[in-house]
C-alpha cells in the first residue's frame, strides 16, 4: 500500500473512533444537564442520584472524546501537510475558534461541575453543566463549518496554489453547514437518548431502582422521539442540498447510473462499479424525484453523465466515489433512523398505557437498540466523506494531492498500527468501565463525588 492509502485508512480509523464518543457527548451532556435541572427545581434526591449516575458515565465518554480529538487536530499537519498548506487560511479558522470558544469552556466547566458539588452555589453548579452542554454543540458547529467548506467550498479565492479567504461570513454561514449541523447534532442527541434509554431499561428489566430509572427512561423516550423525527426532516434537507451541490454523491447514494426523468428510488441493488452497472435492482418509480425536488417531473442526473461532465471540467480521470459503500451506508443510516423513530414512539405508547416499566420484551430490545446509533452515525459520515471522493476539497483538491510528501508509507503504517492498538485497548477498558458502572445503578444521594 502506498502512503496515501495508509493515510486514508488512518484518518478513517481515528475519525470513526473519535466519532463514537462525540455524539454520545452531545446527547449525554444535554441529558445530564436536564436531569440536573430537574434536581435543581425539585430538590428531589432521585434526580440528584440520576444526575450523578449519568454524569459519571458521561465523564468517561467525554474523556475519551477529548483524547481522541487531539489526534485529529494533529493529524492534518502530520499526515496531510499539503492539504494543510492549501486550506489553512480557511479551514484553520474554525479549528482555532473551536478550541478558543468551545474547548476551553467545556474543559474548564466540566471540571467545575465534577469537583464543584457542595463547593459553589447550586445555581452556578447547574450553570456549569449547561455550559458544558452548550460548548459541546458549539464545538460541533465549528468543526462542521470546517468540514462543510471541504464539501462545498465558498468565500475563497485561489492564489499561488492555495485557497485564500475572501469572505468570512460566507464560510461561517455556508449553506452546507446550515443543513449539516442540525442533522448531525440532533443525531447526537438521539444517540445519547437511546444510550440513556438502554441503560435505564437494563435496571427496569431487573426491577432495580425502578422509581429512578423509570424517570430517566421517560425523559430519554421523549428526547429520542422528537430528536428522531427532527433527524429525519433535517436529513431530508441535507440530502436535497447534496443533490444540488454534490450531485455525484447523491447519484452514488442512489446507485443511479443513468439520468432519469423522473427518477426512481432504489430499495436494493448489487452494485458492479467496474462494469458500471447494477443487478437485482428494486426501484420505486418517481420517489427519488419527489425526494430530491419536491415535484413529479424533474430529472436526477446519473453517474455516467456526471462523470462525463467532470471530465470536461477537470480533465480525464475517475470521478466516481466507491459506490457500493456509499449506497449501502446511506441505506443503513436511513433504515436505522426510521427504526429509532418507530421504536421510541412505540415506547411512548407503552408508557401511555402504563406498561413501560413492565414490558420485558421492549426493555430487552432497548438494551440492544442503544448500540445501533453508533452504526448509523458512522454510516452517515462514511456517506458524507467517501461520497465526495476523489476530492479532499470538493472540486479544488484531490485527496491524493493532500498527503504529506515527506512521510513514508512505513511511518504511516507504524502510527496507524499504533493508534489502532491503543484505541482497541481503550475501547475494551472503557466498555468494561461503562458496563461496570451502568450495572451498579445510581449511587446514594450523599455518596462522595471526588473525581480522582
Amino acid at each position, binding site marked *: 500500500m502506498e502512503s496515501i492509502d495508509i493515510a486514508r485508512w488512518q484518518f478513517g480509523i481515528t475519525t470513526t473512533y473519535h466519532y463514537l464518543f462525540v455524539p454520545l457527548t452531545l446527547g449525554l451532556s444535554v441529558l445530564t444537564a436536564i436531569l440536573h435541572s430537574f434536581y435543581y427545581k425539585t430538590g428531589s434526591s432521585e434526580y440528584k442520584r440520576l444526575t450523578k449516575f449519568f454524569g459519571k458515565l458521561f*465523564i*468517561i465518554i467525554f*474523556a475519551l472524546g*477529548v*483524547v*481522541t*480529538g*487531539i*489526534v485529529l*487536530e*494533529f493529524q492534518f*499537519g*502530520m499526515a496531510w*501537510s*499539503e492539504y*494543510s*498548506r492549501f486550506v*489553512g*487560511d*480557511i*479551514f*484553520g*479558522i474554525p*479549528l*482555532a*475558534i*473551536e*478550541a*478558543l470558544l468551545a*474547548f*476551553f*469552556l467545556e*474543559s*474548564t466547566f466540566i*471540571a*467545575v461541575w*465534577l*469537583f*464543584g458539588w457542595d*463547593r*459553589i452555589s447550586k445555581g452556578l453548579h447547574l450553570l456549569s453543566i449547561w455550559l458544558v452542554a452548550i460548548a459541546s454543540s458549539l464545538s460541533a458547529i465549528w468543526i462542521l463549518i470546517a468540514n462543510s467548506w471541504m464539501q462545498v467550498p465558498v468565500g475563497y479565492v485561489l*492564489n499561488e496554489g*492555495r485557497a*485564500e*479567504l*475572501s469572505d*468570512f461570513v460566507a464560510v461561517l454561514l455556508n449553506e452546507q453547514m446550515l443543513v449539516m449541523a442540525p442533522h448531525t447534532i440532533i443525531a447526537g442527541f438521539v444517540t445519547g437518548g437511546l444510550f440513556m434509554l438502554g441503560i435505564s431499561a437494563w435496571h427496569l428489566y431487573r426491577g432495580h431502582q425502578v422509581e429512578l430509572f423509570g424517570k430517566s427512561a421517560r425523559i430519554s423516550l421523549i428526547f429520542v422521539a422528537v430528536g428522531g423525527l427532527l433527524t429525519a426532516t433535517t436529513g431530508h434537507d441535507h440530502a436535497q442540498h447534496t443533490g444540488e451541490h454534490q450531485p455525484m454523491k447523491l447519484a452514488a447514494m442512489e446507485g443511479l447510473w443513468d439520468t432519469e426523468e423522473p427518477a426512481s428510488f432504489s430499495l436494493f441493488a448489487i452494485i458492479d462499479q467496474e462494469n458500471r452497472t447494477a443487478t437485482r435492482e428494486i426501484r420505486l418509480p418517481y420517489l427519488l424525484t419527489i425526494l430530491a425536488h419536491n415535484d413529479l417531473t424533474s430529472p436526477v442526473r446519473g453517474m455516467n453523465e456526471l462523470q462525463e461532465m467532470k471530465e470536461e471540467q477537470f480533465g480525464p480521470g475517475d470521478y466516481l466515489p466507491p459506490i457500493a459503500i456509499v449506497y449501502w451506508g446511506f441505506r443503513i443510516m436511513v433504515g436505522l433512523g426510521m427504526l429509532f423513530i418507530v421504536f421510541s414512539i412505540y415506547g411512548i405508547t407503552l408508557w401511555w398505557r402504563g406498561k413501560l416499566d413492565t414490558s420485558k420484551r421492549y426493555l430487552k430490545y432497548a438494551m440492544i437498540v442503544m448500540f445501533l446509533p453508533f452504526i448509523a452515525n458512522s454510516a452517515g459520515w462514511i456517506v458524507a466523506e467517501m461520497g465526495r471522493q476523489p476530492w479532499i476539497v470538493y472540486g479544488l483538491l484531490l485527496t491524493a494531492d493532500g498527503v*504529506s510528501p*515527506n*512521510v513514508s508509507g512505513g511511518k504511516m503504517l*507504524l*502510527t496507524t498500527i499504533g493508534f489502532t492498538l*491503543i484505541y482497541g485497548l*481503550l475501547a475494551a477498558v472503557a466498555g468494561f*468501565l461503562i458496563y*461496570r*458502572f451502568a450495572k451498579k445503578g445510581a449511587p446514594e444521594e450523599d455518596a462522595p463525588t*471526588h*473525581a*480522582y
Partner: protein
Amino acid sequence: MDFQLIWFILIAILFIGYFLLEGFDFGVGILMPFVSKDDVDRRITINTIGPFWDANEVWLITAGGAMFAAFPHWYATLFSGFYIPLFLLLVALILRAVGFEFRSKMPDKWWRKTADLFIFWGSLLPAFLWGVALTNIVQGLPIGPDKNFVGHLGAVLNPYALLGGLAAVALFTLHGALFLSLRTTGDLKERVEKVARLLWIPAGLILAAFAILGYWQTVLFEGLGLIPGTLPTLTIISFVASYVFIQLRWHGYAFGATGAAIVLGTAVVFSGLFPLVMPSTIDAAYHLTVYNASSSELTLKVMSVVALIFLPIVLGYQGWSYYVFSQRLTREAIPRD
C-alpha cells in the same frame, strides 16, 4: 498594521500559557510516584491538578489551531517534520488522560499501578518531547525548497536537543513540586518541599548548561550577541529568585518565580526566532518566516478580532476556576474505596 507580528506574538502567548500551566501538571505527574507514601497520597497528588489539567491541555489545542490558521506552512512543516515525536506525544497524552480519568474507577492494585505508570510516563515523555522539539526549532532543521522537512529522526534526537528535553523536564518538575507545596498539607507537603529544595541545584545546572551551549548551538544568539539582553537576564533572575524563595520557604513566591522563568524562557525562544519561525539548516533561502509561512491578511484580521474578544474571557473564567479550587487537599478529603 503588521498582522504577522501580532499573530506570531499570539501564538507565542498560547505556547507560553501552555508551558506555564501544563508545565506544573506535567511536574505533578512526574513526581506523583516519588512523593506519595500510599494510595491516599497518590490520590491527593492527582486531585491537586484534577480540575485543571484538561483545560491546561486546551492551550496546546488552541495553539495548534491558531498556528494552522495563521501560519499554515509553519503548522504543516512542523507537524509533518516531527511526525514520529508527535505520534509519541499523542500516545503519551492519551495514556496520561486515561490514567487520570480511570484510575479511581477500580480499587484493584494492578489497575492503579498501571494508571500510575500511564500518568508518570505520560507526563515525563511530553515534557521531554517539547524540550526536544523546541530545541530543534532553534537549532534549525533540514528544510528543503518546498518548505518540507527532509531530514531523519536521528538528526532530531541530537545530543543538544536531548539536553533541551532534559532541561524542560527539570524545570517542569521543579515547577510541579512547588505547585504541590501550595495544594497539600502535612507530611506530603513537607516531602514535596524537600524535593523542591533538592531539585533546584541539578535543575539549575542542566538549565545553565543548556543556556550556555545555546550560544554555539542555536540561532537565538545571533541577534542577541554575547551579552544577554533584558529577557534572558530576567529569566535568570526569576530562576535564581525561586532558589531564594524556596530557602525562605515562601513557596507561593517560589512557584511564581519558576512560572516567570518558564514564561520568560519561552519568550526568549520566540523573540530570538523572530522573524523566523523555522530556520532551515540547508539554505537561508529556505527559512520559514512569519511572512512566507502566513495566511492571507483577511484571515489574520478575522482571527485577531476573535482572539481579542475571546482570549480575555477565557483567561477570566479559567482564572476563576483556579480561585474556586485553591484550597489545600487533606487526607480526609479523599473518600475511602
